[in-house]
């Protein structure tokens, strides 16, 4: 052993270096600091520093030096493991432990570091079996039984350090060993050590929970062991033959060996007891509840059979109920308790839940009901108080989510068992959202209502999105208890509408007397608006779903509810109520014999009617735009599902619903007319409320996007008036925001494809599209256009036209693409002319490119060869002009924001859209254009997609700097584009000019190695086609050389680096094609790797694995079958030796 010769000098040097590092920044120079750091780094690297380190630990008084000495020991032990005598390692470990034990006053960070060194030694030794783990647990056990709180705390620190080291997670120290080693250690540990830690912890908790009163020091120890228990129960158990990396929200899935420990009911009881004892301490309560939540998530092989699972769950639920019943829940318990419930509902199979004794199950459901209602009320209170930490809101969300899970599996449970709970939860939700006296909204604890008007900015989400999860659950519960909930919503809404009507009338009279709007008390109105707001939102979520892209169906519960009562319903009265939104529902004779589903819609229509009438009476300023949004939002959601209900989609259909809203019914016609009037009225009254106008125009789009509905719409005179008004760009429609105008154009075009006789159709287009063309041509063909082009009025006209063109493109469907394409093509060339005129106005340039983007996006997939070529030509010209203008364009790059590069983004989008035709092509034989052109022969083909796209790439590549790739949208679009190009036109890549080729290759490498996994995957996908391309051609091209480089990159990525498993397939495909191309280089890579292995066993394992990898594909050829075989072997390869070379 090395004697401590020169030790005092070393210590002095280290201590003065520590002083430098600890000094305030102003006192030392950067060089001094770097030098000091260097001193420590080289100290830690010194050979066998054990003696000197021991000496330091025993003599130095400087904490930081002690810390470094501990670190040096840890690093050196791992480094020199094979050279060290096992006994000296053993004594080193003993020394460190004794050292810490004898010095209770060590700084915490020094102590933790020394214990870390101990843990690392234990871990490193665990696989050799050279150092027995058992001895350390024995020692720790003795420490615990000492009864001395300081020693017990120390014991806890040791166990915690072991847990972190063996968890093989981000907390684990890097010790330069393979992931396989880490995984094996972890697997071994979770069968033995972990369980011992758990048992030790349980003993401590048992001990403490028995004591009557705990002093501060003891309860501190208690808390640490509770946290440790939580860590054990949150252990991410490794399944056999698998190396998992950290995941979030680990559920408890222990192995079979844990049966005895965890299925013992005393363990669970202990946690309930512990929680009872400490629940008033909010920090500790969080840990104890989290332990229970982990126990509630337990699943997997630990349960020998279902009956074991059932009795475990029964015990858990009993414990939970007796814990909750009879206590007043603390704020800090809410989230924890809801986690327990949510975990057990999600993790236990339905069959196990239903196998609970029925009394227990009923008590559980009742308890859950009460808890949900109570958390809901507390959540409402939190909102009133505007708390930062919304614990009850989180807990309430969790419980509502659990209800949704339960109710969606309703068929597994006893029939009707959720109806009463659903009624209670629904009622309490409504109550919390209504104003007094019916509800408790904005009431604080002492019953005083608060009402403040805060500033709300446009970024704040609407309640319907903000609370969409809650509303979905409540809507679902409302369906379960439809008998109660639908009539309740109806009567509440009808009542509020009547009151709103009265209040508006009174206000109007008041205004006639004083005419000062400021004197109006808005409190009553605002309360009514808020009530109506929530009632409409809940009604919308109850009556209909909003699935994206599918045809929404009437929910079966609602349908059944309507059918069930259809015999008691008078259909004429129902229709009368529906058709007279201007009258009070209750004033209509026989109003209690109406279909409730229709009646609820009628209530919303009544709200809508009061709103419309108020606008006609010039009371718009008194109205709520929020309520206006709610109304059109509801009507849209409703119309998608109910209007012209298609009987073929349902097993059985309710007579009232099909009579009122079915195809060819007067009801449907009436309601289409009504909705159209509403839209038109809103667009003129609410042009200043952008969001409301947007929701309104979306309702209009919904009305015409389905042919059946559009057929009725175009029969309405008001539709034609709207079309004319918009085409003439006269007030008030021209005041609408550009996005609304765009959607309006889209709706008008969609409507034009409804069923009409040919004269009418011609007339329609003459009204809608031709004025647009005419105005545009008149303007740009004016002699002095160049001079007047910069005038605001002219610019506005141009912008409006461009927006309209985008709207027209958006309206494209397969059966209208022929006529829309021809119409738009006429514009495209004129648009290119405008590029020159407006080269100084980036926003106009962007809009012009956007027109092209939209046309390509919506239409290219339907276009046949000749049409596509026309579009390619137009795009090519656009790109040429863009490129020319771009050369002289200055960009203020220093502080450039993403939106300054909108044009670049759009160009890339355009190119990607053009390329997408290669993937999605619906145009077999120009069929949609059958009677229009008889295709020019292909030989006269002038411009191909490749030409356009490569021309575009020539423009884009030089502009895409690494700085620009920091903008996510640009980066994604760019890589999408270049991957597409490599996949579709690999033959064009070698033809690129040298510098472009280089920057493309560089981009691929950059994307593969230092971007997100999504982009890395895109780049990998680009490699196979490039390699295949190379195989066909000459062997010394730059591309050939580049692919050789990529072979090494992909090889390293797959074999040496920790990579995302999702990428294995993409990387594997790339690797295989690259291997085919560069077989010699591949062998060389394998050889180099093997020769660097010193361990003979590992060498053999690797060599075998590599042989197996290519066995099925020797010699490698670009054959699909072989490639698939290779990919399969690769999967085994990664599972087998993947962890061997990847080092942490």
């Amino acid at each position, binding site marked *: 052993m090395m004697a401590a010769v020169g030790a005092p000098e070393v210590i002095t040097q280290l201590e003065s270096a520590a002083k430098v590092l600890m000094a305030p920044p102003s006192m030392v120079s950067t060089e001094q600091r770097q030098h000091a750091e260097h001193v420590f780094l080289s100290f830690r690297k010194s050979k066998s520093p054990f003696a000197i380190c021991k000496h330091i630990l025993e003599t130095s008084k400087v904490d930081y030096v002690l810390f470094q000495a501990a670190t040096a020991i840890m690093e050196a032990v791992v480094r020199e493991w094979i050279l060290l005598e096992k006994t000296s390692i053993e004594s080193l470990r003993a020394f460190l432990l004794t050292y810490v034990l004898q010095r209770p006053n060590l700084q915490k960070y020094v102590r933790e570091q020394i214990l870390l060194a101990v843990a690392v030694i234990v871990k490193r030794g665990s696989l050799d079996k050279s150092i027995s783990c058992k001895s350390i647990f024995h020692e720790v056990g003795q420490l615990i039984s000492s009864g001395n709180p300081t020693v017990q705390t120390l014991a806890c620190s040791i166990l915690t350090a072991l847990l972190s080291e063996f968890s093989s997670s981000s907390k684990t120290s890097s010790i330069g060993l393979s992931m396989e080693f880490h995984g094996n250690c972890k697997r071994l540990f979770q069968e033995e050590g972990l369980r011992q830690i758990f048992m030790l912890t349980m003993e401590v908790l048992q001990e403490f929970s028995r004591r009557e009163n705990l002093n501060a020091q003891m309860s501190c120890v208690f808390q640490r062991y509770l946290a440790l228990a939580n860590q054990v129960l949150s252990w991410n158990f490794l399944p056999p033959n698998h190396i998992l990396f950290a995941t979030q929200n680990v559920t408890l899935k222990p192995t079979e060996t844990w049966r005895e420990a965890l299925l013992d009911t005393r363990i669970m009881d202990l946690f309930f007891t512990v929680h009872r004892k400490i629940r008033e301490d909010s920090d500790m309560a969080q840990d104890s509840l989290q332990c229970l939540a982990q126990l509630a998530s337990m699943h997997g092989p630990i349960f020998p059979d279902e009956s074991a699972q059932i009795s475990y769950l029964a015990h858990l639920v009993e414990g939970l109920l007796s814990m909750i019943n009879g206590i007043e829940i603390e704020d800090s318990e809410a989230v924890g308790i809801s986690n327990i419930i949510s975990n057990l509902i999600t993790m236990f199979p339905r069959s196990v839940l239903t196998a609970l004794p029925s009394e227990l199950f009923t008590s559980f459901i009742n308890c859950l009901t009460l808890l949900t209602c109570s958390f809901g009320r507390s959540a409402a209170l939190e909102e009133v108080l505007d708390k930062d930490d919304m614990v009850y809101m989180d807990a309430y969300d969790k419980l509502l989510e659990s209800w949704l899970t339960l109710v969606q599996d309703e068929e597994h449970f006893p029939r009707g068992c959720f109806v009463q709970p659903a009624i209670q939860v629904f009622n309490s939700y409504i109550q919390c959202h209504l104003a007094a006296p019916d509800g408790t909204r904005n009431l604080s604890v002492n019953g005083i209502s608060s009402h403040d*008007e*805060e*500033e*709300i*900015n*446009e970024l704040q989400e609407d309640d319907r999105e903000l609370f969409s999860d809650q509303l979905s659950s409540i809507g679902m519960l409302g369906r379960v208890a439809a008998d109660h909930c639908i009539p309740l919503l109806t009567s509440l809404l009808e009542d509020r509408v009547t009151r709103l009507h009265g209040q508006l009338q009174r206000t109007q009279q008041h205004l006639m007397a004083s005419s000062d709007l400021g004197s109006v008390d*808005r409190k009553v*109105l*605002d309360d009514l*608006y*808020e009530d109506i*707001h929530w009632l409409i939102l809940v009604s919308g979520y109850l009556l209909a779903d909003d699935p994206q892209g599918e045809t929404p169906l009437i929910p079966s519960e609602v349908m059944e509810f309507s059918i069930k009562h259809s015999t008691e319903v008078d259909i004429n009265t129902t229709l009368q109520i529906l058709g007279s939104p201007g009258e009070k529902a209750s004033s209509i004779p026989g109003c209690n014999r109406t279909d409730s589903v229709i009646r609820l819609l009628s209530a919303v229509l009544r709200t809508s009617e009061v709103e419309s009438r108020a606008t006609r009476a010039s009371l718009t*300023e008194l109205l*709520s*735009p*929020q*309520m206006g949004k709610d109304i059109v939002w509801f009507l849209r959601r409703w119309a998608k599902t109910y209007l012209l209900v298609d009987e073929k989609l349902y097993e059985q259909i309710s007579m009232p619903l099909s009579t009122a809203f079915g195809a060819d019914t007067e009801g449907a016609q009436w309601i289409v007319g009504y909705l159209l009037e509403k839209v038109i009225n809103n667009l003129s009254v609410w*042009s*200043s*409320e*952008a969001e409301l106008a947007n929701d309104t125009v979306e309702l209009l789009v919904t009305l015409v996007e389905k042919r059946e509905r559009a057929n009725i719409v175009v029969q309405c005179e008001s539709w034609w008036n709207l079309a004319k008004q918009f085409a003439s760009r006269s007030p008030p429609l*021209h*005041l*609408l*925001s*550009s996005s609304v105008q765009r959607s309006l154009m889209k709706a008008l075009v969609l409507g034009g494809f409804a069923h009409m006789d040919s004269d009418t159709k011609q007339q329609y287009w003459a009204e809608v599209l031709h004025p647009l063309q005419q105005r545009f041509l008149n303007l740009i063909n004016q002699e002095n256009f160049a*001079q007047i082009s*910069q*005038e*605001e009025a002219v610019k506005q006209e141009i912008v409006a036209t461009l927006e309209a063109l985008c709207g027209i493109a958006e309206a494209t469907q397969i059966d209208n693409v022929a006529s829309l394409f021809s119409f738009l093509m006429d514009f495209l060339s004129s648009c290119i002319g405008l590029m020159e005129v407006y080269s100084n*106005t980036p*926003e106009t340039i962007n809009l012009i490119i956007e027109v092209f983007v939209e046309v390509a996006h919506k239409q290219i997939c339907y276009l046949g060869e000749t049409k596509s070529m026309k579009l390619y030509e137009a795009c090519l010209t656009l790109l040429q002009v863009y490129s020319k203008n771009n050369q002289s364009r200055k960009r203020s790059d220093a502080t450039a924001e993403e939106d300054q590069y909108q044009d670049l983004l759009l160009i890339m989008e355009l190119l990607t859209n053009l390329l997408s035709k290669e993937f999605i092509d619906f145009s077999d034989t120009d069929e949609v254009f059958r009677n229009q052109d008889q295709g020019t022969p292909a030989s006269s083909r002038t411009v191909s997609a490749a030409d356009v796209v490569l021309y575009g790439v020539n423009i884009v590549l030089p502009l895409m700097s690494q700085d620009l790739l920091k903008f996510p949208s640009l980066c994604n679009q760019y890589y999408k584009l270049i991957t597409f190009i490599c996949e579709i036109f690999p033959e064009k890549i070698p033809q690129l000019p040298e510098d472009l080729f280089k920057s493309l290759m560089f981009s691929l490498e950059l994307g593969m190695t230092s971007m997100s996994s999504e982009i890395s995957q895109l780049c990998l996908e680009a490699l196979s086609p490039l390699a295949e391309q190379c195989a066909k051609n000459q062997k010394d091209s730059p591309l050939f050389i580049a692919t050789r480089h990529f072979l090494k990159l992909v090889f390293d990525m797959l074999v040496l680096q920790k990579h995302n498993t999702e990428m294995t397939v993409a990387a594997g495909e790339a690797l295989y094609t690259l291997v085919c191309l560069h077989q010699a280089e591949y062998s060389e890579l394998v050889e180099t790797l093997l020769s660097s292995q010193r361990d003979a066993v590992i060498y053999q394992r690797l060599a075998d694995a590599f042989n197996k990898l290519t066995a099925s594909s020797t010699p490698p050829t670009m054959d699909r079958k072989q490639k698939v075989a290779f990919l399969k072997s690769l999967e085994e390869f990664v599972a087998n030796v993947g962890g061997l070379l990847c080092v942490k």
Partner: protein
Amino acid sequence: MADPDLDFQTGESGASATYPMQCSALRKNGYVVLKGRPCKIVEMSTSKTGKHGHAKVNLVGIDIFTNKKYEDMCPSTHNMDVPSIKRIDYQLVNINEGYMSLMSDNGDIREDLRVPDNDVGREIETKFEAGDEFMVTVLSSFCTLEPL
């Protein structure tokens, strides 16, 4: 004459200097009069007071002549004044005691504009001395430069 205001006021005769527009119909990059100054809109956002309140528009504009920043807020239904802005291209013929001789497309010459005392102005002078031929764009009577 140092005050560019005067240039603006005397720019056009006959045509109305402003016209009204509903606040919600204003657009970013468009123009508006804020605190009596013609501004280019650089930021536009909406807000409301209370959940059931009506939209208000918050405008940030940059004075097109002085580059000073102005802010304003108004209900979205109100009308705002939008300045009429004209751009005319002239060829620079001469610079005489700080005044430019500008010739329009139809040959008319105006000599009432100073070379502006800023970067653009200096660029005009440099280019002129270098003998370059170029156009000067006059924005409602003040200068921005577009080299030809």
